[in-house]
């Protein structure tokens, strides 16, 4: 059997992914995490002076919550049900950092934990900054902000 035929056979016989169920779970879990974020944002809006500061504090608190739930082993269970609902919020970003730190700690502190903490979250930061840089540069040049 050719590899192509085999792939087709596997594809035809594997159970269909429960698309609707997955999507509904992602919606529910993602929505719940966002509502929790709204609680934090409302509190931060009262204690902080500017909107940017409130956003900054909210992101940090959500990252802390994600890290703690990961440490307790709860976030992995949420992610199992929620899929993208757990991965897309900033708590999921935090989850990847904390679980990588825990995972690679056994390879040593410097070259294990230190080097590989951002093994999954790194691309998000790198490409986020690159695209932000390009857009901001373009906007600043067009509007003559320099």
């Amino acid at each position: 059997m050719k590899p192509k035929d085999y792939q087709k056979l596997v594809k035809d016989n594997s159970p269909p992914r429960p698309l609707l169920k997955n999507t509904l779970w992602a919606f529910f879990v993602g929505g719940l995490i966002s509502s929790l974020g709204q609680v934090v944002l409302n509190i931060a809006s009262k204690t902080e002076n500017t909107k940017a500061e409130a956003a900054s504090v909210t992101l940090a608190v959500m990252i802390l919550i994600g890290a703690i739930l990961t440490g307790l082993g709860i976030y992995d269970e949420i992610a199992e049900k929620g899929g993208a609902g757990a991965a897309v919020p900033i708590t999921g970003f935090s989850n990847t950092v904390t679980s990588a730190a825990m995972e690679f700690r056994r390879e040593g502190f410097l070259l294990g934990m230190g080097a590989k903490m951002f093994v999954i979250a790194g691309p998000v930061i790198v490409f986020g900054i690159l695209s932000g840089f390009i857009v901001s540069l373009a906007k600043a040049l067009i509007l003559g902000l320099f």
Partner: protein
Amino acid sequence: MDYIIAFLVGGAICAIGQLIIDTTKCSNAHLLVGMVCLGAILSGIGIYEPFQEFAGAGALVPVLGFGSSITKGMLSEIERLGWEGLFTGAFEITGLGLAASIVFSSIIALLRKPQK
């Protein structure tokens, strides 16, 4: 009311993400990178701010909001400092969370071993 809007908007963004993962060959990592770039770009062309004004944490908490915060930080620092802002602004809003992430993840990794 703002909780319901945050729930609906945040949930919808995650549901779209799940659909993309399930119906295309896109992995989780590709999805997150795509979303952070999209957030940064939408913020640069001025669409994300009004959206976040309306949706609150529903727009801030998904990784789109992280990308948007990077651009927003750069633009506000450009106004304050000039060209240096293109670089210092990247962590203006997100830096608090990133440094917190490093500190707390290290502490947790010291205290706990992975479950599986």
